[in-house]
């Protein structure tokens, strides 16, 4: 693990730092080369902890969801004892996809090809569809059980996998990002839950463009002008852009966040007039319960501040007008897939759930008033990258000449949090950081 990252030279040739002139630049081939795409798969997505899902998605024993994580098809399931498990969704016999549903509840997974049957909770091979042709004890060493993902660990019910058996423990990996996940998880004494209607989107652009965008506050007033104009109409008489203030941080290991104050309303727990008078006492009650449980100071931070967090490499937690969690994966050098979930608090008042979803939809998501314009920016950047020679992207805003790149700080509209991400990307891709214990 890195101590201070104050080096003048970085590891790979894709990222350059010039401390004297306070410049931090990324070679745009990092966004378009097939070689980088391949190396990211073999390093970033094989060494880092990757978000698999939230415990609420598989609340009951036998519940499962299937999803593609870092290029691998996985099954995330809860066994009969209530523990979470992660398996590769590939039959130990010939490799066929075993489970074809996106979600459900089952006791066994049965391969459609030759009928191999696996216990859904343990992955143990129960039956090969026939007794002929196999010796006694054929699977006595478990070689033919459903293959298990090497590592599965959780922080506050956010479950992560790692494909490297020697990886550092999750909590050490999360570093200071754990504190930000805690601020999110602290919203309710009952915990959080994923709201039905998760979104999967495929769009143009290298996956890192969406990562950068997710905690880039600089682009808000320009790219999202039409959204802020709408917001000004909604919250009458306020210039919302002007009310923002806050800080951006590198959180170690490439994680980063910015945290701001902005009166755009939060179901936990900041009332604004568009939520309606009926919601007002209920949101105040939510706030009061926070104060009772967390103390006034922390309750204030949980309720009133907004935060955009990235857990390196690709988990985005946007705790702002709603609670949006997404992961982003490359499907080609110039194409990305994003999974987007809206979270709410468990046992949330139905009116507040409605307010939450309503508030969320104005900005976020493929049909919102802002997200589509972000997608347009990815496509434009990708096009510019691919159709202009020798370009470098600049991520210098707010850079101090002596800053520790992994823990830089700055105004929230600066790019300190992004430099930490890129510094870690550079170290892992270049082989200087293995993230092993």
């Amino acid at each position, binding site marked *: 693990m890195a101590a201070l990252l104050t080096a003048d030279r970085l590891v790979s040739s894709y990222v350059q730092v010039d401390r004297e002139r306070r410049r931090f630049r990324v070679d745009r081939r990092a966004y378009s080369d097939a070689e980088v795409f391949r190396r990211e798969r073999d390093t970033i997505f094989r060494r880092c902890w990757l978000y698999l899902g939230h415990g609420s998605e598989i609340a009951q024993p036998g519940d499962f969801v299937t999803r593609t994580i870092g290029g691998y098809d996985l099954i995330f399931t809860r066994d009969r004892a209530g523990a979470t498990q992660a398996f590769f969704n590939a039959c130990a016999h010939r490799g066929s996809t075993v489970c074809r549903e996106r979600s459900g509840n089952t006791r066994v997974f049965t391969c459609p090809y030759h009928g191999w049957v696996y216990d859904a909770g343990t992955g143990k091979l129960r039956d090969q569809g026939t007794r002929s042709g196999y010796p006694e004890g054929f699977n006595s060493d478990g070689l033919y059980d459903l293959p298990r993902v090497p590592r599965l660990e959780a922080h506050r019910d956010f479950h992560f996998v790692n494909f490297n058996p020697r990886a550092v423990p999750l909590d050490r990996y999360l570093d200071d990002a754990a504190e930000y996940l805690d601020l999110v998880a602290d919203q309710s004494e009952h915990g959080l839950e994923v*709201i039905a209607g998760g979104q999967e989107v495929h769009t143009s652009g290298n996956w890192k463009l969406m990562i950068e965008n997710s905690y880039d506050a600089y682009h808000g007033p320009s790219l999202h002008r039409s959204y802020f104009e709408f917001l000004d109409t909604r919250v009458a008489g306020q210039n919302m852009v002007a009310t923002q203030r806050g800080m951006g941080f590198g959180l170690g290991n490439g994680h980063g966040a910015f945290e701001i104050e902005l009166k755009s309303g939060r179901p936990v727990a900041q009332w604004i007039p568009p939520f309606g008078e009926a919601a007002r006492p209920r949101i105040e009650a939510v706030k009061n319960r926070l104060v009772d449980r967390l103390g006034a100071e922390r309750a204030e931070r949980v309720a009133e501040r907004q935060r955009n967090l990235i857990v390196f490499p690709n988990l985005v937690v946007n705790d702002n007008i709603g609670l949006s969690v997404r992961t982003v994966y490359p499907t080609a050098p110039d194409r990305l897939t994003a999974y987007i979930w809206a979270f709410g608090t468990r046992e949330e008042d139905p009116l507040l759930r409605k307010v939450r979803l309503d508030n969320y939809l104005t900005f976020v998501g493929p049909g919102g008033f802002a997200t589509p314009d972000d997608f347009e920016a990815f496509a434009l950047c990708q096009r510019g990258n691919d159709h202009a020679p020798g370009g470098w992207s600049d991520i210098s805003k707010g850079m101090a000449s002596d800053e520790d790149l992994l823990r830089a700080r700055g105004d929230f509209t600066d790019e300190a949090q992004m430099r930490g991400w890129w510094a870690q990307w550079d170290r892992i891709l270049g082989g200087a950081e293995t993230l092993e214990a």
Partner: protein
Amino acid sequence: MPGTDTRRDVETFLYQEARLLDAWRLKEWEQLFTDDGRYLVPPVGIERPEEADPARTLFVVADDRMRIGQRVIRLMKPSAHAEYPHSRTRHLVSNVEVLGGDEASRIQVTACFVVYRVRHGEFGTYMGQYFHTLVRNGDSFRIAEKRACLDLDALMPQGALAFIL
């Protein structure tokens, strides 16, 4: 059950709506809605999207009347980057059925749609089923609710859904 005259009137109305959308005459499209009208796009890839409730499920679009108006204002600005320049679309509407309701006032109708869209050389096909709740307005209708259920299992290729289905 309502008769063929009603269905013919509904078809005429839906074709007119499609024509306004393809011509980006969104101010006129917006006027088709009642004062409490809603425009909904349920999540893709779920069972029975026609029954999903935006108060409990994350929709792609769940606009009340105010937000329909704001959506139109936004889409007509150059700063709505995802649709500037505007995409070209063609809304095809077929399999129109009157599902029920009171012919004289409020009826539920359904229709199948395919929207072809092209922008910057990228083509997209969006197929699905409409569920409109229509209110009689002389010899035409106004829209109390328009629900466009996509038959996709993920949003691709452009990812976003900034234009109107």
